[in-house]
């Protein structure tokens, strides 16, 4: 039965992926992609990885879906649907590659324990109780730190493309029906609570900074979609601080170790330290993901004027001083 379920999930994944590639309409492809994300999280739940399933559902299906749909709406070309595909013959080499890789997969001995033993040994020392969180924040904290850096860089890149000083989201007009506001007033506290709960959970059970950050980011996107003015009222400096906070705390963690003359990122195994970093990381992830989701908008407020000016001058970088 379990085998049957696995085969079913696997087959559907491949079938949907195939449909995503072949779908004639872009909208169809995006919707299929969201389905694909949900199915993927199902597969991961099957593989005993609830953290990843949660994250994938929130990001792969949720946030990526929102982003894709949003972009699709913005770049839609009314009246003409051009698939514009070429190189269909490349399918053959790709399948060949798949065959080769499959051949080598046959040779994998699936009894390898990987680093599970080493993690178990490490769990004796670390102050965290849940292994995934321990790997993320402690054993391989450097990766997580730099991952926050990637997130920050994406936001910086977005600002660079949009030539904005900060994400001042173009506030959509509030929804006509009061249902939207009502929904927000119910949903938002719930979202905040769920996120906080996940964060707290992460210390000893599936959950943690990333999942919490994603949930909060969903709240932010919701606020924006509903046209709530609160995001626009956020001061720029606060926003900047929020985006960089997790990263900065990690930096502090790394730097203080140097002062104590220990290798970078070594920290006293006190839970408070790690939790502070984790909470800050969650906040930063939320801020950055919200910014990524809504910051790609074309500016329509007063920034637009300055954007036009920026573009004109940005084409030729010139010197301001030292003439």
């Amino acid at each position, binding site marked *: 039965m379990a085998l049957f379920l696995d085969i079913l999930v696997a087959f559907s994944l491949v079938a949907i992926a195939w449909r995503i590639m072949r779908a004639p309409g872009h909208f169809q492809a995006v919707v299929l992609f969201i389905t694909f994300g949900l199915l993927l999280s199902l597969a991961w739940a099957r593989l005993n990885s609830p953290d990843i399933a949660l994250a994938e559902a929130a990001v792969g299906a949720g946030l990526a879906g929102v982003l894709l749909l949003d972009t699709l709406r913005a770049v839609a070309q009314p009246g003409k649907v051009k698939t*514009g595909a070429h190189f269909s013959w490349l399918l053959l080499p790709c399948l060949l590659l798949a065959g080769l890789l499959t051949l080598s997969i046959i040779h994998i001995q699936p009894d390898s*324990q990987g680093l599970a033993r080493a993690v178990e040994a490490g769990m004796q020392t670390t102050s965290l109780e849940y292994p995934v969180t321990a790997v993320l924040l402690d054993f391989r904290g450097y990766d997580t730190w730099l*991952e926050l850096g990637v997130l920050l860089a994406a936001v910086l890149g977005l600002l660079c493309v949009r030539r904005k000083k900060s994400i001042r989201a173009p506030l959509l007009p509030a929804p006509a029906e009061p249902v939207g506001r009502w929904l927000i007033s119910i949903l938002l506290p719930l979202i905040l609570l769920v996120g906080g709960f996940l964060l707290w959970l992460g210390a000893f059970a599936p959950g943690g900074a990333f999942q919490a950050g994603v949930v909060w980011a969903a709240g932010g996107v919701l606020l924006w979609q509903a046209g709530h003015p609160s995001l626009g009222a956020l001061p720029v400096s606060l926003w900047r601080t929020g985006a960089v906070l997790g990263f900065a705390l990690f930096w502090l963690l790394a730097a203080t170790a140097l002062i104590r003359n220990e290798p970078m990122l070594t920290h006293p195994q006190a839970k408070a330290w790690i939790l502070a970093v984790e909470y800050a990381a969650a906040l930063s992830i939320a801020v950055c993901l919200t910014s990524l989701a809504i910051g790609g908008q074309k500016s329509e407020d007063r920034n637009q004027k300055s954007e036009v000016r920026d573009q004109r001058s940005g084409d030729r970088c010139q010197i301001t001083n030292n003439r």
Partner: protein
Amino acid sequence: MHGFYIYAITAILLFCLGLWGLAFHRNLLRKIVALNVMAGGVFLFFISIANPDQSGEVDPVPQAMVLTGIVVAISLTAFALCLARRIHEKTGQNELDTSCSIEDGDG
């Protein structure tokens, strides 16, 4: 045991389909979707090796790596989509203009 091979091979197929889609589509949005399918395949592979025998014991390291990978992927996707939108605003096209000769602009 078999579950591992099923998911690992699925992962490979997803990766290769995504790769093909990346080359196959001209539309930028579709290319980005294809990249995400590729990423999904890679992540699935990691999780399948984290849990080879589908018993309760799961290797936490690949899980952590996938979580990191998901964040990286969404960051890059968001940035790529933003670029695609900007290109659409400037050219009205959703494709990379391959015929656009890079020789024409000055500077």
